[in-house]
């Protein structure tokens, strides 16, 4: 069955953006960002609010289409694909602002993602329960984020923190080559945060996935990241080893600094 595909050591999943740019009217939210992300590494993307991190993600995963530049996955230009096609190409995404199927059960939320991965969405003739393996797998995933107790509750009735975990579980279900986390722990209570961080850690330990992580909590970044890139006003300001980047004046001033940042005109 498809969902237990053999794990090969040299997995594809190398992602590259070339001069990726988007303008909203006069405002350039992402400005000619060129960057390459290799499988087996976790890259943290940091930057002040409004720097363009989420927009950068949106451009990669296809929620927005670039004004200029390309997105390449394993060398293939996927810039013109729709979001759903990019998902099938191997890009997975969790959203900063939780986006779930509010009136469907927690289980169904995850199951839908698994079903998409299996590409049986257009099967109109079999009853959904015929695909029992999907349900089992969905239960496993819920277990891994400690949501199995709320399995049958509608997603909307979960407290905020649990919804964040479900958001992550959806991404896990897609099992993509490239994982993109957008502030996965925001709004999660201190005792729940480790659950998600553990998941990311395990993912990283497999050394075959490309992981992108947007995060404001520097302790988390420091612990997990192999590499940090800094976005500021839409441009790539720094790129390198975590300690070096964090120590760089750009980050110290523009991001961590005590005084409000005076933005460039």
């Amino acid at each position, binding site marked *: 069955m498809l969902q237990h595909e053999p794990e090969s050591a040299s997995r594809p999943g190398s992602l590259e953006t070339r001069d990726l740019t988007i303008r909203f009217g006069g405002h350039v939210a992402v400005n000619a960002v060129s960057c390459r992300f290799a499988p087996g590494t976790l890259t943290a993307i940091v930057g*002040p609010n409004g720097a363009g991190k989420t927009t950068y993600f949106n451009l990669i995963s296809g929620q927005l289409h670039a004004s200029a530049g390309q997105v390449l996955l394993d060398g293939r230009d996927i810039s013109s694909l729709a979001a759903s096609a990019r998902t099938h190409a191997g890009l997975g995404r969790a959203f900063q602002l939780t986006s779930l199927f509010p009136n469907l059960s927690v289980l169904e939320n995850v199951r839908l993602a698994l079903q998409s991965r299996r590409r049986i969405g257009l099967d109109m003739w079999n009853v959904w329960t015929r695909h029992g393996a999907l349900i089992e797998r969905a239960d496993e995933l819920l277990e891994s984020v400690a949501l199995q107790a709320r399995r049958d509750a509608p997603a909307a009735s979960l407290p905020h*923190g649990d919804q964040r975990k479900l958001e992550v579980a959806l991404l896990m279900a897609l099992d993509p080559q490239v994982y993109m986390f957008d502030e996965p722990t925001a709004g999660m209570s*201190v005792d729940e945060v480790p659950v998600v961080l553990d998941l990311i850690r395990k993912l990283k330990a497999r050394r075959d996935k490309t992981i992108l992580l947007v995060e404001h909590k520097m*302790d988390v970044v420091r612990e997990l990241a192999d590499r940090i890139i800094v976005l500021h006003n839409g441009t790539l300001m720094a790129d390198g080893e975590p300690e070096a980047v964090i120590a760089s004046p750009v980050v110290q001033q523009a991001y961590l600094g005590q005084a*409000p940042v005076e933005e460039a005109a």
Partner: protein
Amino acid sequence: MSENILSLKGVHTHIGAYHILHGVDLDVPRGQLTMLLGRNGAGKTTTLRTIMGLWQASQGSIRFDGRDITRRGTPDIAQLGIAYVPENMGIFADLSVRENMLLAARGARSIADIDTARLEWIFGLFPAMKKFWLHPAGKLSGGQKQMLAVSRAIVEPRKLLLIDEPSKGLAPAIIANMITAFRELKQTDTTILLVEQNFNFARQLGDSVAVMDDGRIVHRGPMAELAENEELQTRLLGLSLAAHQ
């Protein structure tokens, strides 16, 4: 006038068929900043919504500034001088930042009526507000929306601010600004009840603290006490985890 500007006594709240709050007792001392902590699903948001009258308490009483507000409508409660920043931020996505602010300033008929100094102060805290003044608020970044939500609550003086997780999604520099802002607000005799997950943030700000679990208040006391007592932290919040320290 009483010491506590807000006090909840034995408040129970039901959402549909679910019993969420099981008798919350909470006092918020005037002019102080009270932190409300607790794990996911403990009922913090529900407590704030019940205070605002967005959900009706099925039992118990809520007093604000000497008045019983248990059965009052939300607009009434707000008009008594409470501002609320909801968990989902409650941004009017369709309206511009400016229009969002104008609506939040209940006393103002146009932007010109808003106190210029106060507006400048907000722009100083959150430069993005000024930059995106005429943009539709729905197009702001996640953190910028959060800033707007807080800006709306402080655009006019209020007696009490109820703020649900303002720090989530904010860059460290902005969090620092917000800490300053809350301190300054306290100077002007504003009481704040703050729900927070970020313990670092909570520790720097809080005067007193209440911890919720499963729809009840399980601990109350001065912040300093909790901040120093690691054992208590672990027990109440599961905080010993290295990842977050």
